[in-house]
């Protein structure tokens, strides 16, 4: 084993790339859950976005069009969930699970003729002198545009939730849908928009995997990233900046275990591969443990109407 082969600079740099798809999906799901909807279909929307983005990017030769198509694909798939849960009042947990299974199957079908193809390459953003700063340059300023857009999205969501009326209405709908309705807000409309936003973000996250991180198409390539995104939302107590922390933490563990594998650590590879997931579970258990005074930290921060169906009867 040769730990000296692991370069901290490269490790940190690849951490940012590894965290981006999960961060995108988790930010989308954060908005969905803030509106009081629990969509467990993140994995399905991610992988649908991955193939939509990949196929369109290959066909058009433009990664930008690919990403747009990925967002649209994820949003369209999420609309199925939105229609079923918001209009037909189906159970959100069951519908979300079904959406994941459906997305996995649909993406395999769509991706049959794209296996083994390389997508159009995506340039790293040229940040000029910034990239030449020692240490900070390679870590922070040597990535593709999506990494920075995702960070901007995270800050944007934080500011929107905290400072804008739209954010206030979104939180209100998730907190008490009966009250929001009584005050004249369109609960179903707000939730549908949130669900579509979540779908689009998950789609972008999937496309980031298939177009940049990997980059190629294989069936089931999201490999549980959507579930990790769901877990990170809980871990973050529904706060955008903590979602960032959680995604980087998970990304860091993932990258570290890959490096340890490469360095030939004398542990079966399978243990290393499962470590990010194990650590996620441990963190979730700690977060959900009851505090003094009863409720867990996680359940305190949860939107009060999370997962509850709303019907404007009366």
């Amino acid at each position, binding site marked *: 084993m040769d730990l000296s082969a692991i370069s901290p600079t490269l490790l940190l740099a690849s951490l940012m790339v590894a965290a981006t798809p999960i961060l995108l999906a988790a930010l989308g799901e954060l908005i969905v859950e803030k509106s009081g909807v629990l969509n467990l279909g993140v994995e399905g929307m991610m992988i649908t976005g991955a193939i939509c983005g990949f196929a369109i990017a290959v066909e058009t030769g433009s990664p930008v069009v690919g990403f747009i198509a990925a967002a649209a694909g994820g949003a369209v798939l999420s609309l199925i969930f939105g229609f079923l849960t918001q209009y037909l009042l189906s159970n959100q947990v069951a519908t979300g699970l079904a959406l994941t299974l459906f997305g996995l199957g649909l993406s395999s079908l769509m991706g049959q003729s794209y296996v083994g193809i390389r997508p159009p390459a995506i340039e790293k953003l040229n940040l000029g002198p910034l990239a030449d700063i020692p240490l900070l340059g390679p870590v922070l300023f040597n990535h593709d545009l999506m990494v920075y857009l995702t960070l901007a999205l995270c800050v944007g969501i934080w500011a929107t939730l905290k400072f804008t*009326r739209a954010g*206030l*209405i979104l*939180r*209100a709908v998730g*907190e*008490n849908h*009966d*009250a*929001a309705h*009584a*005050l*004249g*807000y369109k609960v179903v409309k707000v939730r549908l928009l949130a669900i579509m936003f979540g779908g689009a973000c998950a789609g972008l996250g999937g496309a980031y995997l298939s177009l940049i991180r990997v980059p190629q198409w294989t069936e089931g390539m999201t490999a549980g990233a959507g579930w990790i995104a769901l877990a990170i939302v809980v871990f973050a107590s529904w706060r955008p900046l903590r979602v960032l922390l959680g995604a980087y933490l998970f990304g860091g563990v993932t990258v570290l275990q890959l490096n340890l594998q490469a360095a030939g650590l004398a542990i079966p590879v399978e243990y290393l591969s499962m470590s990010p997931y194990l650590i996620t579970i441990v963190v979730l258990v700690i977060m959900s443990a009851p505090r003094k*005074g*009863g*409720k867990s930290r996680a359940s*305190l921060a949860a*939107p*009060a109407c999370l997962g509850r169906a709303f019907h404007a009867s*009366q």
Partner: protein
Amino acid sequence: MEDRLSIAGEDLLTITGLTKAYPGVVANDQVSFSIRPGEVHALLGENGAGKSTLVKMIYGLVKPDAGSMVLKGVPYSPAEPRAARAAGVAMVFQHFSLFEALNVAENIALGMENPPKMRDLAARIREVSQNYGLPLDPDQMVGDLSAGERQRVEIIRCLLQNPKLLIMDEPTSVLTPQEVSVLFQTLEKLRGEGCSILYISHKLEEIRALCDHATILRLGQKVATCNPRQETARAMAEMMVGEALHVPQKAPRIPQDVALEIDQLDVPARAAFGTSLKGISLSVQKGEILGIGGVAGNGQDELCSVLSGEALTAAEQVKLAGTPIGDLGPNARRALGLLAAPEERLGHAAAPDMSLTENALLSGAVREGLEHNGMIDWGKTRDFAQKIIHRFDVRTPSANTAARALSGGNLQKFVVGREILQNPSALVINQPTWGVDASAAAAIRQALLDLAAEGAAIVVISQDLDELMEISDRFAALNEGRLSAPVETSDLDVEKIGLMLGGASDTKAEQVSA
């Protein structure tokens, strides 16, 4: 009341022939009345008489099937609450209109059309709330506020819009007498400024003190109008019901053995917004009704769950007829004869999506022998449910109806009846008549008195002080988790009770300055 039929132009709001039907029931049938500028107009009626539907139509939450409204001489048909607010109509809801996890300023901003910047809004909230004698801190989380303070948030939210008509749905049901008088001063001030108030309440004495006119609804139709100042509470109750009202009678009581006691009990708060119980001691004799008063959130739910067995304590701390039961769960206590009916009807006292029969089984299985070796005796269960429905006049299509589908008052009758008919030796009941109309409340109170007369020890936890005065033998006040020493009810009046509730110190600052 002939002068009420004056020219429509003088009236603030005129309602003509409003009709709204839901599948199977006509909620409002050709209702017409009018509200003058600067008057407090009471809307009276039993549960299910159509008051809520009527005000929801005025506030734009429900669309009428027929009929018209005229506001300030202009046809008025709000498509949504936003339109109603823009026209100068505001509403203070009875419940579910606040967001616990948001702060006061955010809650108020949500109820406004074009809220100013948060900092300016906070300043206006401070100013207006001081002005009307309802001080509020804009940065506080609503989840941390008392019921009275929450209502202030709703009222300030309305006042910031300068309403012409303020609709209030049961505003005093959660307030102490002191808070009620502060509220009334605010309403008087509003009336003085020319704002009209449409006031819904079950408390007829309040209506007599406050209101200029009353419109009475029965089964969706307007049956009478009156001047509440010239009527007795009883006369108005009879107009609502359409028949003579039965007033519960309390028989004199002879001291007997202690049935239920708690000894020096401390329980830490369980939920984040819960209350801890501190040094609670109480004892109730057979045949006695102990009334426990206090504003919600002062430990009522906690005390109720300690008695019902949902929260366990050391065995010796709770005793039933001398037997230690503090470590026994609810079913073991039921077997021994201690029953409980918690406050929250849906979700705590009854499972919302289960039928009445199933709900009867859930609490009655032990004492009524509704199951044998794990098998349910459905025949017996149905009979038990039917008995409750029949004896307590629960108005429901059948025993197979889901609990959720019943109106609050009817479900309350079912929940209370279910416990009373199991012949408990001790009964703990939290808010027995909350949201129940006058005649149903009288029936429930009479049933409690009858049960006590048969020798049961009863603990009634209630915010309705008139109710406690009417039925309890002794009264104790619960304030911030502490229980006062019980006092004979005959030595008390509402004024003294209000002071016992501990409101005396913190209401002085809230008197209206004007």
